């Protein structure tokens, strides 16, 4: 209960601000429409309702978005191509695959960097450089290149998600794996523990807080990657394609609905990582804060 109340309060505040903002942002267009229809002296309450009921508003009102989500999910069969659930699933599957691959790659690179001085110096700058390459620019090349060798569907998209999501994991894990105190490392040295043992018994557990902070960012970015990748591979559907086609057709409400589903997906994913973190913390005997 003490979790629900704050969320509701904040939500309520947002909804109220939203409705007010919708009046302000849609007023301009509504005025044009009304002038054109020769409507004058519209009372404010009616005017507000008009701004909340436009077809292509600058900012759709919450109930319009909710209505669209309802129509595009519950009211449709889940396998229908019009269903947001169907597209959400497509995006989710490449997000998850990309996240798993990205986390694995990130952790692997971090391990190499922490253990090998040459890699530390040569790899890191280029990993950083790789992230500054605008993904949208190379995504088509990846998709076309992989398509030419017969790899299509989820895998190319997941690779793009991976490309974005491994980076926070590398940065965080390098820091995390280096975070054990000197004396904790010294202890391992006195046992002449192998690098592998030091890794499993010391560096890895010590890196947990950083790993989870990075994974939360990583999974969110992975979703962004999945959505972006759909721009270069419109064939398969997905929330990104929905956003896009919504935007061509000027369907603001449709964009917002897809955006909401994507955001909700992200929130759920981040929360799942958060639960995993709590569970791991408990297993590791962390002191309650």
């Amino acid at each position, binding site marked *: 209960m*003490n979790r629900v109340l*704050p*969320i*509701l*309060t904040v*939500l309520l505040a947002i909804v109220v601000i939203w409705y007010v903002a919708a009046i302000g942002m849609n007023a301009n267009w509504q005025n044009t429409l009304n002038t054109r229809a020769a409507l004058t002296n519209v009372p404010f309450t009616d005017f507000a309702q008009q701004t909340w009921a436009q077809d292509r508003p*600058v900012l759709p009102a919450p109930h319009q978005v909710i209505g669209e989500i309802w129509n595009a999910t519950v009211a449709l069969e889940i396998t229908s191509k019009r269903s947001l659930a169907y597209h959400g699933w497509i995006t989710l599957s490449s997000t998850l695959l990309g996240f798993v691959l990205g986390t694995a790659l990130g952790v692997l690179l971090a391990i190499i960097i922490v253990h090998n*001085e*040459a890699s530390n*110096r040569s*790899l*890191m*700058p*280029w990993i*950083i*450089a790789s*992230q*500054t*390459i*605008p*993904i*949208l*620019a190379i995504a*088509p090349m990846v998709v*076309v*290149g992989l398509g030419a060798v017969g790899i299509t569907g989820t895998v190319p998209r997941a690779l793009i998600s991976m490309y974005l999501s491994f*980076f*926070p994991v590398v*940065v965080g894990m*390098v820091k995390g794996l*280096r*975070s*054990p*105190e*000197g*004396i904790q*490392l010294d202890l391992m040295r006195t046992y002449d523990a192998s690098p592998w043992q030091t890794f499993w018994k010391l560096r890895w557990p010590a890196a947990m*807080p950083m790993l989870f*902070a990075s994974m939360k*960012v990583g999974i*969110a970015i992975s*979703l*962004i990657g999945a*959505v*972006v990748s759909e721009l270069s591979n419109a064939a398969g559907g997905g*929330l990104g394609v929905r*956003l896009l086609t919504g*935007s061509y057709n000027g369907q*603001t409400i449709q964009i917002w609905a*897809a*955006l909401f589903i*994507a*955001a*909700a997906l*992200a*929130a759920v994913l*981040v*929360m799942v990582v958060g639960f995993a973190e709590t569970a791991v913390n408990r297993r590791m005997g962390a*002191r309650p*804060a």
Partner: protein
Amino acid sequence: MSQLQFFLALVAGGLSAAAFALSVVTPFEQGLLLKAFLALGFMSLIRFFLPLGLWADAALALLGAVALLTTIGAFGPTPAFFWMALVGAWLFSWLFVERLSKALAPRLSDNAGLGLLIPMVFGMALLVIWEVVTRGANVPPVLLPAPSMIGAQLANSAPILWADFVQTFIKSVLPGYAIGCLSGLVVAILVDRSPFLKAGLLPIGNFMSALPIIGIAPIMVMWFGFDWQSKAAVVVAMTFFPMLVNTVAGLNASSAIERDLMATYAADYWQTLMKLRLPAAGPFIFNALKINSTLALIGAIVAEFFGTPIVGMGFRISTGVGRLAIDLVWAEIAVAAVAGSAFYGVIALIERGVTFWHPSVRGGRA
């Protein structure tokens, strides 16, 4: 010699030897330099009897690179020994880097210049391989142009590139980054300050975490216009969440006894924050700053795909792809990579200065 070095030396030498044999039996007049490199690479196997300095490997790698670059066009279909020579040259450069970093390891700080050599060698190797593979294997330039083409384009289009850089990096990325990081930090502190907000805002923060750029970019254009303001807004939205998550984690990073100490002074919330929890959160905050430095750039560039005045790196890239001016696209990418890396580098330097006390910076010495 470590195991890895031994292995590298053996494979590099052996491969050169095999390629040399192949090149001798193939009737080619050209590629004398390549043959010379292969012969010398073969000879490097004497290192197993006579020690060979690490600079010898550097020289071999360099010779190999030059030989490969000068002989690319000389053959019709590229022969197998050419590719073997490429792998060989790459292995020599790797061996060199491996040995150099081992040699430098004990006195790193005194050797900043030589330390820089290592990523440079790695980068050069990457470029040479790229050049040789794209040209050797006739990769269509509209898919992936060779670095030399990109370089030429870089030199030719400097004024355009500069204007794009100013538009995207200076006008969109920097303000967006500053506002996004700052607001992430502030919200994290607010959230931390009030358990009520923590319960209420954090899930909604998560909600915002992955608002896909391509979804918000058109909306931001609608709200803030076509110019840099809407791009900065996208950057704000993208950088906000990593900062929020990391700061929230960082604010819990101080140990119980450190917090107890503050309690005994009856330090108020802000004192505890400024003197204990923020410094202790430093490594986490810098983590976010680093991730955001590259994310901001991606965000601004992608946002420009959705409507801009006709300048900017993202604009140039999207129209470049449409016009198949892929070398210009890669020139932009190169600028983005340099700008992003420099940005990251500056933040990493500041991090070293500010969180000097953290074991990850002190090198774990207690």
